[in-house]
């Protein structure tokens, strides 16, 4: 094909570095965000060292500069300001540079054009620009560790006034770089969102009606709308805070008649849709993988779409539940409690439909399926623990304790990250042409699932005992001293959890060259990406595909196999198809 040949004529740098091919950009986002996932994990390990063994010399701590670790004859001891930077940067990097680009940057780019039958994104150059804004933003965030005063240390939520003036923390430039980096990343996200929305609305193949789209694409579509509406609010707030820091405005500083709670309202008005930006694509991926593993149609496809849409709508009116104890009017607290309770309903609907999907299936426990089931079982826990903090009187007690830390990690690690493992393993062959190793995939899954629960389940318990978040040394509180053995247990398990991720990393790297050749459709799946070679050529489809049915026609009685590709003509039409496949217009 022309498009294919054309791609090979391009210089190496245009094909692999400044590429406009959505599949290459997806791989770029994948490598970038897996790198940041490793960085975020190492930061977590350092945080846990301090919590498990407060103010004891950290192994390898001598390698870090004196501004981070105080050198003593016995070894280097973590400084509290560095601890605060670690807590801040772990959250920031994991949320903005690992989970969000993994879900949106990787799967949005890889799946949307392939699943709707398009040759690329609507705006390929804008797509390239999106990655080349996101990546430097990430580097800028990392560089902030090396500047005078260290990296930002006011928490990933950067509550004002702590974040608004360096006089409170000694961090000036680090906080400013944090703000600038996230603003740049915001532009990258907006460019991606505009692209995804335009592509899905305009470039669906003939026959690809809205309700024939795979749920992964549906979720990414709704997520893109959330990003388009939420990121400008974050960007506005970030710029206001940057002005407070640098040019003497006082939006969030009471001394200049500013309002600290305004930051919280702006941040969480963005931040709660953001929470769903971090979980909706994971839900979509899980739905696709579960149906494939169970060899059954997704149970209640329309209900699943409606649940995604209603979560997206409700996500705009629940932000106040982060602020129950903030000094916000208690009457508002009551209002937000009711909306927050209601948003549990669409999440519950999704869980029941996932159970319905595997019910009476013919379940093939391949590695992606294991991770998808891991997602469902962990998301149940994360969803249910959310009900505790939705109840305002209970939240009085558990707010800002390790119960919240447990909750957020059950949703973002047990939820999003397991779905990411499912998705990366499932679509790996479509990116690299080979399958990841199944045996090592399973070993990694079971070790991760067990260690993950050993780390985060006990955090509920210490939270219930009143253990606050973000404290540098829990033993300073007498009533927390009896919990120290649990803190040490968690720390040891975190080290093991981080270490076993090497299995996944090695499996990922080695399989690029040594993996089993995948062919077009290794999982016997139905959606359009499995009708083309792995990896698909530049331009994806040789002929514009014609879509005859939904993406989940597994085990249909009309066909012999237990799958039915979306573009296979129905038996009655094979003789005289209603629509002739058309060559791709180039």
């Amino acid at each position: 094909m022309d498009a294919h040949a054309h791609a090979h004529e391009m210089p190496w740098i245009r094909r692999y570095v400044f590429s406009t091919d959505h599949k290459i950009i997806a791989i770029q986002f994948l490598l970038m965000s897996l790198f940041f996932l490793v960085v975020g994990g190492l930061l977590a390990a350092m945080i846990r060292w301090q919590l498990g063994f407060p103010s004891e010399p950290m192994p390898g701590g001598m390698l870090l500069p004196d501004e981070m670790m105080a050198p003593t004859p016995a070894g280097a001891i973590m400084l509290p300001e560095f601890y605060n930077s670690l807590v801040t940067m772990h959250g920031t990097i994991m949320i903005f540079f690992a989970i969000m680009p993994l879900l949106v940057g990787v799967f949005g780019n890889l799946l949307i054009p392939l699943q709707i039958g398009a040759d690329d994104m609507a705006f390929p150059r804008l797509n390239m620009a999106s990655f080349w804004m996101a990546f430097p933003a990430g580097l800028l965030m990392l560089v902030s560790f090396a500047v005078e005063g260290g990296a930002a240390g006011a928490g990933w939520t950067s509550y004002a006034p702590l974040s608004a003036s360096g006089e409170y923390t000694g961090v000036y430039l680090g906080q400013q770089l944090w703000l600038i980096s996230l603003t740049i990343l915001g532009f990258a996200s907006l460019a991606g969102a505009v692209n995804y929305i335009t592509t899905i609305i305009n470039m669906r193949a003939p026959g690809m009606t809205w309700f024939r789209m795979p749920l992964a694409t549906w979720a990414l579509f709704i997520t893109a709308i959330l990003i388009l509406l939420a990121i400008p609010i974050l960007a506005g707030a970030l710029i206001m805070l940057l002005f407070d820091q640098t040019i003497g405005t006082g939006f969030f500083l009471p001394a200049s008649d500013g309002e600290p709670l305004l930051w919280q309202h702006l941040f969480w008005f963005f931040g709660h849709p953001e929470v769903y930006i971090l979980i909706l694509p994971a839900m979509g991926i899980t739905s696709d993988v579960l149906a494939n593993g169970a060899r059954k149609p997704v149970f209640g496809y329309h209900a699943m779409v409606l649940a995604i849409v209603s979560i997206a709508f409700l996500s705009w009116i629940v932000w106040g539940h982060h602020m129950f104890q903030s000094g916000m009017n208690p009457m508002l607290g009551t209002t937000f409690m009711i909306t927050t309770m209601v948003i549990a309903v669409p999440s519950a609907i999704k869980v029941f439909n996932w159970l319905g999907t595997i019910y009476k299936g013919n379940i093939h426990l391949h590695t992606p399926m294991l991770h998808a089931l891991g997602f469902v079982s962990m998301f149940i826990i994360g969803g249910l623990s959310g009900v505790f903090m939705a109840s305002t009187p209970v939240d009085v007690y558990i707010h800002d304790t390790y119960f919240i830390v447990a909750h957020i990690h059950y949703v973002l690690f047990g939820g999003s990250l397991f779905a990411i493992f499912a998705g990366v393993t499932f679509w790996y062959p479509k990116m690299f042409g080979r399958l990841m190793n199944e045996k090592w995939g399973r070993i990694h899954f079971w070790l991760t699932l067990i260690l993950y629960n050993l780390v985060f389940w006990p955090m509920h318990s210490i939270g219930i005992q009143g253990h606050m978040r973000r404290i540098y040394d829990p033993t300073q509180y007498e009533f927390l001293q009896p919990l120290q053995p649990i803190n040490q247990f968690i720390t040891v398990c975190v080290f093991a959890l981080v270490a076993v991720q090497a299995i996944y990393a090695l499996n990922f790297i080695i399989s690029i060259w040594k993996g089993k050749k995948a062919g077009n459709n290794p999982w016997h799946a139905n959606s359009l990406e499995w009708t083309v070679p792995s990896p698909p050529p530049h331009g994806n489809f040789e002929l514009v595909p014609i879509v005859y049915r939904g993406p989940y026609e597994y085990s249909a009685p009309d066909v012999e196999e237990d799958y039915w590709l979306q573009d296979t003509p129905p038996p009655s039409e094979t003789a005289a198809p209603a629509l002739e496949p058309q060559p791709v217009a180039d």
Partner: protein
Amino acid sequence: MSWLLPESFSTFGPDVDFLYYVILWVTGVVFVITEALLVYFVIRYRRREGQKATYIHGSTKAEIIWTTLPFIAVLALAFISIPSWNMMKNPDSVPADALDYIVNAKQFEWEITYAGTDGVTGTADDISTINIMHVPVNQAVNITLRSEDVLHSFFLPEMRVKQDAVPGMDITVWFEATAAGAYPIGCAELCGNLHTTMGGTLNVYEAAEFDAWVASQSADADDADDADDQEDQ
């Protein structure tokens, strides 16, 4: 490792703990049922050669049931939470006979101001302590919570009290302790480098003991020039 709350020693305790255990039971039952079904389905419907999955697309009846039931359950949980929330946080719920206090948070200490013998804060006989708060048992206290610099969060775990202190705002916090003793005060909001050190103690006295303490402190105050001398450390 326990899911039981530590014992509470304030009038808020029964409300908060009741709601917590109701939610623990409701979510616990849902947790066990859904996870058990998940595991059961995976085992029962595991892949077998020659077997084909049952071709079902869904069930409207099931969708209606599992939309309606959670909807009723979560709304019920919300509505039973409202009265307790109003009692704890609505400034109108503070009992009329509550003792007035001012708690002023700053990096990295709690400055507590007592009304003294005249029962009014902001007068000459006010008493002040740092990081140690004295209150009488079975007596409501009405705290005006302030901050001088950044956000802090006034956390009394056993009293089931938590409230952020916000610079520029006077926030009403009240509670009534139900047993004499010493209880921790914590800061629950990241407030800077030494956030972790911002702890304190809440001393709950029998009424007579508390009155005696106030009297002794007021007498001291007459002699002392420097307010810092009254730090009851």
